[in-house]
């Protein structure tokens, strides 16, 4: 019997997950819509004053991005866990961490990337100065993969539970704090023409660290949940 290589397995998994995501377009739109609505609630609560808005905009955008990522996390493993295909993946001869990385990558493609693309628009709504728009996009590009990766550990731990959603936020949000700090402060600094290299390097370092370590932890957690 022909045995597919790990690379082939990853490719077909990538294709399958993208197709699945494409077929459930509506589900993907929800977190994005949530992102937009949460961001537009802030001016209503705080007042339309442009100066105030532009000072707190980086924080609002980043917190909203964190929450939107959190909402979409469950979809990484939920349906695969429910119909048993996750168990098959874990039983397959391919390293589980690699397969997990592919799944998380797809999740980032369908939830993180639209969020990044949407962010300049929301930045305009919140009066972010044009100079920091690029930094906003860059910081989100470096930061959203971390959100998906670290979040996947939390999802893997709670996927076996009936009501894991609230617990998931309790587990994952404290781990998100470094991303929030560096992401938001990069955007804030850019608005004042201050150097942002340190923050972006830090985000990049965290990104690399989570790419290397998170899939291993997620795979271990999935094995426990699937037990």
């Amino acid at each position, binding site marked *: 019997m022909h045995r597919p290589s790990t690379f082939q397995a990853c490719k077909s998994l990538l294709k399958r997950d993208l197709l699945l995501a494409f077929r459930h377009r509506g589900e993907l739109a929800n977190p994005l819509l949530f992102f937009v609505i949460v961001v537009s609630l802030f001016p209503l609560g705080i007042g339309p004053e442009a100066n105030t808005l532009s000072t707190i905009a980086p924080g609002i955008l980043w917190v909203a991005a964190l929450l939107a990522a959190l909402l979409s996390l469950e979809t990484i493993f939920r349906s695969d866990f429910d119909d048993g295909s996750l168990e098959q993946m874990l039983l397959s001869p391919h390293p589980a961490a690699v397969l997990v990385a592919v799944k998380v990558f797809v999740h980032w493609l369908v939830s993180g990337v639209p969020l990044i693309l949407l962010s300049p628009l929301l930045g305009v709504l919140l009066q972010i100065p044009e100079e920091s728009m690029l930094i906003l996009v860059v910081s989100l590009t470096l930061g959203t993969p971390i959100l998906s990766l*670290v979040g996947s*550990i939390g999802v893997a*731990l*709670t996927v*076996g*539970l009936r*009501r*894991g959603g609230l*617990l998931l936020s*309790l*587990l994952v*949000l*404290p*781990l998100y*704090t*470094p991303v929030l*700090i*560096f992401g938001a*402060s990069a955007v804030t600094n850019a608005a004042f023409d201050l150097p942002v290299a340190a923050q972006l390097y*830090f985000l990049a370092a*965290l990104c690399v660290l989570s790419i290397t*370590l998170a899939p291993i*932890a997620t795979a*271990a*957690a999935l094995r*426990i*949940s699937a*037990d």
Partner: protein
Amino acid sequence: MWQFFHKLASPKFFYDFSSRLIFWLAIVTIILMASGLYMGLVEAPPDYQQKDSYRIMFIHVPAAWMSMFVYMVMAITGAINLIWRIKLADIISMSCAPLGASFTFLALVTGSIWGKPMWGTWWVWDARLTSELILLFLYLGYMALRASIEDKTNASRAAAVLALVGVVNIPIIHYSVEWWNTLHQGPTVTKFDKPSIHTSMLIPLLLMAFAFKTYFVSVLLVRTRTELLVREFRSSWARKELSK
């Protein structure tokens, strides 16, 4: 030496061994804490700047140290359970969580009480206070995860993974928060050269730190023994112990 550790991992031996240990640890704790509190609250001179209000540090600083230390113990025993499936390690790990959370809470409360006269407000978003707060959230998440998984073995392993993820993250969170905002006074004891704290204050502080350590170990042992009885209630030694 190894044989001793192997024996220690057996619930029955541990149960007997710890009962003697707790007694001595409790005595040491009482002596250390009494002398530390006396030296700290009575003998140590008032600070030239903070007057007497600095004395809360004899509780605050050891509690803050313990909050990190207990997490490490929890994660290491969790890892031991994950790798070698030693039930006892899991029970210790589980018993650590509420203790660590309490130490963290104590550090936060005393820090807040200290902050009122020093900084003029109950709460500041100071780096170390904030990272303590996040540490408290991590403890609560750990406890919540454990509580919501019904199967004990799965709960223990999932919790161990979470604790290990936390260990990787705690330094990152700590330094990112530190970098974000620092108002807290710098470290005064762990400096590599001469500590910038006077000996008359350092000695009671160290005494209190040791007292907190021995207190933690003795309470940990009590909790572990109780949990051991709960889990092993079917075995003959536990029944004998319970019918006493």
